[in-house]
């Protein structure tokens, strides 16, 4: 007798809709007094190890309009390349690096995260992935959350060896995943559609 493989099917996604802020940044949306502070407003806390940076950018639609009603989340490793997560198998994560952040974009589709530059993270088949920050974007009109990564313009060597950037390079689109670093600021604009459409990941 052959065993039947009956894996469950994932619950289908539905758009976060125009009122996503009520659920994800309630204080920002004016619903105060339910929770003390919106989750994800701090990616790192005082005493964090590593280079402090700000990561800022805009989310833009296919008509060149700012996506002013989106919510952006990021997820990153600490300066040593370790994730502050129960699913991380290595020990020694920096307790001051939460590594997760969430922001409602402003009327110009703009987000800003105060964080640190992450370290390199081991790649699945040996070696390391270049330092990167994972992005996840939801909004009205986005039917399933969009995931991408931001790499750093000041890591050209590491970027050349990164397995995911290599895939994007094969189709000439790796540049859309590079945040441009100037001093302590990194700029990363995300284009949902059009000539400069950002590479999104199924990962």
């Amino acid at each position, binding site marked *: 007798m052959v065993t039947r493989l009956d*894996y*469950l*099917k*994932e*619950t*289908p*996604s*539905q*758009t*976060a*809709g*125009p*009122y*996503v802020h*009520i*659920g994800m940044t*309630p204080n920002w*949306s*004016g*619903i105060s*007094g*339910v929770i003390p502070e919106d989750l994800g407003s701090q990616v790192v806390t005082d005493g964090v190890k590593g280079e402090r940076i700000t990561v800022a950018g805009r989310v833009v*639609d*296919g008509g060149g*309009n700012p996506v002013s009603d989106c919510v952006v989340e990021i*997820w990153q490793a600490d300066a*040593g*390349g*370790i*994730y502050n997560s*129960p*699913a991380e*198998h*290595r*020990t020694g994560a920096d307790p001051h690096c*939460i*590594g*997760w952040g969430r922001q409602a974009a402003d009327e110009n589709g703009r987000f800003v995260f105060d964080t640190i530059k992450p370290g390199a*993270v081991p*790649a*699945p088949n040996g070696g390391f992935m270049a330092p*990167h920050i994972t992005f*996840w974007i939801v909004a*009205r*009109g*986005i*039917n*399933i*959350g969009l*995931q991408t990564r931001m790499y750093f313009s000041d890591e050209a060597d590491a970027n050349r060896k990164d397995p995911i950037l290599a895939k*994007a390079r094969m189709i000439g*689109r790796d540049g859309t995943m590079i945040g441009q670093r100037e001093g302590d600021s990194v700029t990363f604009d995300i284009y*949902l*559609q059009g000539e400069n459409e*950002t*590479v*999104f*990941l*199924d*990962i």
Partner: protein
Amino acid sequence: MNDRLANARAEAGAFMERDHSQHPPAYAPGYKSSVLRAPKQARISFASTLSEKTGPAFGHNMLGELDNDLIVNYAKPGEEAIGQRIVVHGQLLDQNAKPVPNVLIEFWQANAGGRYRHKREGYRAVLDPNFGGFGRTITDENGYYWFRTVKPGAYPWPNGVNDWRPAHIHFSLFGSGFAQRLISQMYFEGDPMIAICPIVNTISDKAAIDRLVARLDMNNTIPMDLRAYRFDIVLRGRRSTFFENRPEGN
């Protein structure tokens, strides 16, 4: 850096590939907002790495006592939200049918009249001064969750000339890895508005739509107080890792 790769625990398993036939496509012109916001290029597919296998965790101690009680969490002291009182409950599982414990679920909804407490809301239905429309909870050790609220009303929205959303509650779900991050909406059994909703119909698979419909659960109602709706949720499952005695996903 190699010392970080030694010992400790086995690395968590990668996630099963997402079955996109169960999800709406990015571009679904029946839902007009998707037209300019849908990426047109193919996604780059890659087995999940440590960056997706890990994810943030939130402790139960983060929660306030009323976080999962929308009937009172925004109400003035001694007052309550107006509407049909319900409890929504269910189990959060992964594709291996394993419970997903200790993860954050956030939910938001319109009030009983179908009105959101939001600056961009344009529906003329009135606000309930005692209803905020936001709540959250963390699944217990068996993946169960529950919250108390009022049944939201249907509401009109600018898509077609006369499109109305079925009554629904928005859900935001975390898992143990960031690849499981998911936002969805829960509908109510028997609602005739479900079949004619352009957002529901971005999903082409009827059986998939049915899995977004919570079932009226009369065995768990509280007489003279609340009706219960049951809504189980499934997140992506991890693949087995065969480096330990016991495959991790099994």
